[in-house]
């Protein structure tokens, strides 16, 4: 694995671990999702650049468009959570807890 591939692969794995082991805030999990999207954008862009497949340069742009949709949906959910529960801390999302 070349150093460039190792760096964005480990960036993706770190974002995934940060999302899996999120601690207190919903916003921290959303930021880890954004880190995942960043590593995917860099991966797709480097694919297009290193293999000189310039037609593939549209793929990171489309990824960015859909990632913007996902980020806005996640932030709207966080705003709705902050309205109904008063905060975005995950220990407050316990209505279904017995």
């Amino acid at each position: 694995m070349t150093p460039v591939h190792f760096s964005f692969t480990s960036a993706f794995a770190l974002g995934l671990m940060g999302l899996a082991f999120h601690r207190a805030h919903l916003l921290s999990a959303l930021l880890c999702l954004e880190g995942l999207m960043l590593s995917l954008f860099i991966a797709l862009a480097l694919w297009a650049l290193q293999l000189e497949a310039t037609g593939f340069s549209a793929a990171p742009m489309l990824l960015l468009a859909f990632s913007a949709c996902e980020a806005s949906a996640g932030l709207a959910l966080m705003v709705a959570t902050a309205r109904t529960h008063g905060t975005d801390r995950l220990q407050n999302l316990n209505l279904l807890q017995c």
Partner: protein
Amino acid sequence: MVYTFSLFLMGLVVGLVAVASNPAPYFAALGLVVAAGVGCGVLVGHGGSFLSLVLFLIYLGGMLVVFAYSAALAAEPFPESWGDRSVVGYVLVYLLVVGVAAWYFYGGWYEGSWGAVESKEFFVVRGDTSGVALMYSFGGGMLIVSGWVLLLTLFVVLELTRGLSRGALRAV
């Protein structure tokens, strides 16, 4: 050039370690800004200046600005930075994991595998710019689909943030 490039690659990994260790969202957003900045540097080093500018404008200037002011919803009186006891364990473990993985792969990293040297001629029309222009010609269907999805997301956000009183938007 190789040193700058390897610094950018390490900056990407360290920036995402800073995000993944889950400090207070203020600091995680800062780590993401740094990671996106050096990620732009990585793309420029490979000759993708247009994609790097797109990342800067749309990702940093659009999405992360929204995350930065939404961090006000996650305000707490004593935000936990990377030095605080509950976060520093995560930081050290993630750095250790990345270090072990890098040590495992280190044997195959020789001199020439670090960066892409731009040793070609200089063209005015760059590869990534003209590749993105394909999105408007042959990729027109995908453009319409993503435009439709963005419009749909606008209505999703409006529905989610409408709140109890089914009327105009209100402040948080």
